[in-house]
């Protein structure tokens, strides 16, 4: 009965809304079942942005290599998340720039092949949001960082036959805090981060 009502109201709504309702992931935190989920490395990524010389923005990405989240929607503040990144797999749009970033001037991936984020607290907010505080370790230097996260969707994934959910988060760091401050301030020290995170139930 209720499903029929929902279907009818969605038909009356715009087509994109109808498509959204058929998607495996829905923006409803109650759909998340409590437990431990693995980071989905194929769909978890960080996009960073710096200001390049005051002319335009410049972006690059890191893909997650692993991690997990333990979550109980009844007690969201008790959630714990950790994500690791393989630094040598960084992605930028210039091969020469990629090599420079991997080298000793920046991330020195040969010496420091992984970076890691480990949460220390989660504060749920309104409208499926949360403030996630944690420690980010790059080049063996650990600094606190605060992320503003928002649930994108949760549900059963027909592809991997498991419960999945994902969130979108933003944050900001100073790259010089992690020993990667070369060319600052001509290229900004401030780095904006956008995180797309996806998790699959173990």
């Amino acid at each position: 009965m209720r499903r029929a009502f929902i279907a009818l109201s969605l038909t009356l709504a715009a087509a994109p809304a109808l498509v959204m309702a058929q998607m495996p992931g829905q923006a409803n935190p109650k759909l998340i079942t409590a437990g431990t989920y693995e980071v989905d490395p194929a769909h978890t990524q960080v996009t960073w942005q710096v200001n390049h010389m005051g002319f335009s923005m410049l972006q690059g990405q890191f893909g997650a290599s692993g991690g997990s989240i333990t979550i109980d929607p009844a007690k969201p503040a008790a959630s714990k998340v950790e994500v690791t990144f393989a630094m040598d797999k960084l992605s930028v749009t210039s091969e020469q720039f990629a090599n420079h970033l991997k080298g000793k001037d920046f991330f020195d991936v040969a010496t420091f092949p992984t970076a890691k984020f480990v949460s220390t607290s989660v504060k749920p907010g309104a409208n499926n949001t949360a403030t996630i505080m944690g420690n980010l370790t790059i080049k063996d230097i650990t600094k606190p960082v605060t992320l503003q996260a928002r649930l994108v969707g949760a549900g059963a994934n027909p592809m991997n036959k498991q419960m999945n959910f994902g969130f979108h988060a933003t944050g900001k760091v100073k790259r010089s805090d992690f020993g990667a401050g070369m060319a600052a301030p001509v290229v900004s020290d401030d780095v904006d981060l956008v995180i797309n995170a996806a998790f699959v139930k173990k």
Partner: protein
Amino acid sequence: MRALRVCRVVAASFTLSGAAATAQAPPALPGTMDVARVTGGTYAVDSGHTQIVFTVNHLGFNSYWGMFGGATGTLTLDPAKPGTASVEITVPMSGITTTSPELNAHLAGADFFDAAKFPAASFKSTAVKVSGTSATITGNLTLKGVTRPVTFDAKFTGAGKVPMIETQAIGFEATTSIRRSDFGMGYGVPMVSDVVPLRITAAFEKK
């Protein structure tokens, strides 16, 4: 050319660091958002610093971003007559990059961009309407051999002289949304979104 660019940034940073050590005020960056600095003429796309970021929605669980780089092209503008500006950009499909090597390979193949058959995408403006430091840029986007009109919302992000090579540079940011199925790339729709927001961060240097 690329090696020069890297060295130039390093040299500029040393110059500014030196200035910062002695000066009271924060050092001025080469580019500022001051339209009075914009000089007319023809600019070349700065390939190393022009990027297109695309976003898709993955099954409703999460967003996913990828990038294109290596663009070439030109921008012609006259600050006295901003509506007469024109821009054309060519983007090689070999420059697709995401955080998944498997996805990079899939995107390059026939299911998506078919880069072997369609090695480049291009945009050529047909009209520019300027309002302050923003502009609406209408033009034709050719992707996978299909040409359709698109409109970008653009904003000026900086202009000035590039240190060491004494060239005028200008930067913009432009956004639009396309339906990838309009360009013969509807694989996975609707589970992976058809609507794809695009954000271009474009840097140009005067020829």
